[in-house]
């Protein structure tokens, strides 16, 4: 394969991978702290994409500005979801949480289908087709912004977890729930904050995604499997791991698509996934269990 295709394919994989990483960040955070697999993650992404779409369509708000509104809104939504629905309904049993999030996914998806029909929607922004030319490559500006956004969010999350009191409380609750409770950490609150952060990540991802993508009530499913793979690949609960995993998955998918064809491109991702599980079960950057 010619270099003029190979290089853009790698760059493109990295840019796509950053968005996978952003979606996976929310998932890995929730897993790392609450030790639950959030099946509603894809449905929440769909809801966020719809929110970003309608903010642009009805209020004329640019998706990149909508980040400022949707991030706190989805944080509050996620907080409420964990505090008043998932937490109480689970009775402290992880198996229940799994089912509750699965149920939430079904409800959110079908409510969206009922409200907005199965119609596919896209937005048209002035910069939707802008590119920067780098050495014969045309790199999409919205994708470049998406890449930057994902890196910034990962960095902010990392700083938040490492250097703030909330972050310390989150880490404490993740490591030793009872111990944290004894030290005065309000665990229910911290769990909800974590879930809120995860949901906020999804909202940011949606705003970065919508200028070049479409939305319909089933769109989240296309990303959620990739996000799960990314999380396991990077190491469950690890933020740098999710970032690395996302970029890795993006590049693998792109190159496999190029060499094996788009229909077989997904094989590469899951092949990597199996290899990592075999030889490094804790993931690339995960802590040993």
């Amino acid at each position, binding site marked *: 394969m010619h270099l003029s295709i190979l290089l853009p394919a790698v760059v*493109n994989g990295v840019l796509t991978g950053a968005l996978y990483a952003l979606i996976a960040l929310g998932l890995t955070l929730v897993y790392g702290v609450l030790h639950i697999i959030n099946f509603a993650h894809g449905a929440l992404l769909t809801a966020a994409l719809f929110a970003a779409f309608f903010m642009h369509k009805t209020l004329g708000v640019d998706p990149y500005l909508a980040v400022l509104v949707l991030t706190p809104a989805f944080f509050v939504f996620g907080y409420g979801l964990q505090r008043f*629905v998932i937490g109480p309904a689970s009775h402290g049993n992880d198996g229940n949480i799994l089912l509750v999030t699965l149920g939430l996914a079904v409800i959110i998806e079908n409510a969206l289908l009922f409200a907005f029909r199965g*119609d596919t929607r896209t937005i048209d922004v002035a910069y939707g087709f802008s590119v920067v030319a780098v050495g014969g490559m045309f790199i999409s500006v919205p994708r470049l912004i998406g890449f930057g956004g994902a890196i910034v969010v990962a960095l902010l999350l990392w700083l938040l977890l490492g250097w703030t009191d909330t972050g310390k409380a989150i880490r404490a609750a993740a490591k030793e729930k009872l111990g944290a409770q004894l030290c005065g950490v309000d665990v229910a609150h911290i769990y909800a904050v974590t879930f809120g952060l995860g949901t906020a990540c999804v909202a940011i991802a949606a705003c970065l995604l919508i200028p070049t993508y479409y939305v319909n009530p089933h769109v989240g499913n296309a990303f959620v499997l990739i996000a799960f793979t990314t999380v396991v690949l990077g190491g469950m609960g690890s933020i740098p791991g999710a970032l690395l995993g996302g970029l890795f998955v993006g590049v693998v998918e792109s190159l496999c698509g190029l060499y094996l064809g788009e229909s077989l491109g997904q094989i590469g991702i899951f092949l990597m996934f199996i290899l990592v599980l075999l030889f490094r079960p804790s993931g690339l950057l995960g802590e040993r269990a």
Partner: protein
Amino acid sequence: MPSNDNSVTRRKLLQTTAFTAAAAASGVLAAPSVLRAQGGGVKIGFLQPVSGALAYSGQQGRLGASIAVDEINAAGGIKEVGKIEPVLGDAQSTPDGGNAEVEKMNSAGVCAIVGGYASGICLATTQTAARYDLPYVVDVGVTDAIVTRGLKNTFRFGPGFGVIAKTALANLIAINEKAGKPAKTAMIVHEDSAFGSGLAKLLNEQLPPQGFEVLETIPHPTPTRDFNNVVLKIKAANPDIVIPANYYNEYVLLARTMQQQRVRPKAAIYSILGGAASSYKFVKEFPEAAQHIMDCNHWFDPRNPMAQALKKKVEAQGQFFTYEVYLNYSATLLLADAIERAKSSDRAKIIEALGNSTFAGHVMPYGPTKFVNGQNQGAAPANTQVIDGDIQVVLPEAFASAKPVYPMPRT
């Protein structure tokens, strides 16, 4: 967890459960099953997938059928038989859902059914209807198996897959020859299920004998999130013609990525049953990406004043004038004509009347209506091209509203 937390938990759980149940119940209640209109006359079943994955197409189809019914009833109904009493059904985007509705419609005493939309649904519902000798007019369903199983009750007014593919190929060759054969190479981008793969196979067999070299055939799954690789391959191979065959979402992504990467084939983007190429929605939302794209698909007769009146009516309702609308509209009129000639709601008589129909009062660019084994021999697709923000018919010449722009100018 402390015990005093538990009571709160239980109450909250009940709230959650109640909310869930309410949401589920409202979903069920809202799903329209069989709704019956009031008034006498003749009952006709209208069966579309108005919920599920095909909901948009089903809703558009129902719109077309209901406009036809309203027009007939406003003019006093079907002569000597009376007003149409529509019995609406939702196939829920599955063959099973469609079958259940056929059963319900049969017990509701309909004299015929129009609809089905998807090939898979039509295959099942026509067969179920055949058990009751219930006349069935297929609105879209392009799979040829629908009309080759010897079902006496089944009629398809529109063209099947075989005719569409054959016409698409013949028209491509004709357009290319007329312009002095500027195109010699082609690349096929298709979705990897039966529809796209079948088409790709056919093209790979039939293009080379006509002097076209197929440089590469690229399958992709539905959904595909990213078309950059595909477009990079197109860029590297630099074909004269790109032939996409996929559904709406992927079509839009492909066209947008091609525009972004500044990839324009030398002669044409020529789609066959293209998901978006002859969609007013796509043209309105992405006029630049859509410019000069050609498609061979279902289309209305732009020279027919009835079609233009229907288009205005649909657009006045804030809806796009899609092929589901005018195919269902025409199929309903075809059936009404047959009932009028049968002079009764007797199923056997309607089947006989459909079988020898020469109906001409429709909005499609078809030849004379003549049914052989349930397939309208006059049915044919049209070639369209997006020219300056509008969709024009460029072939067949008898119905054309513009001349093809070929090879398309490079901008």
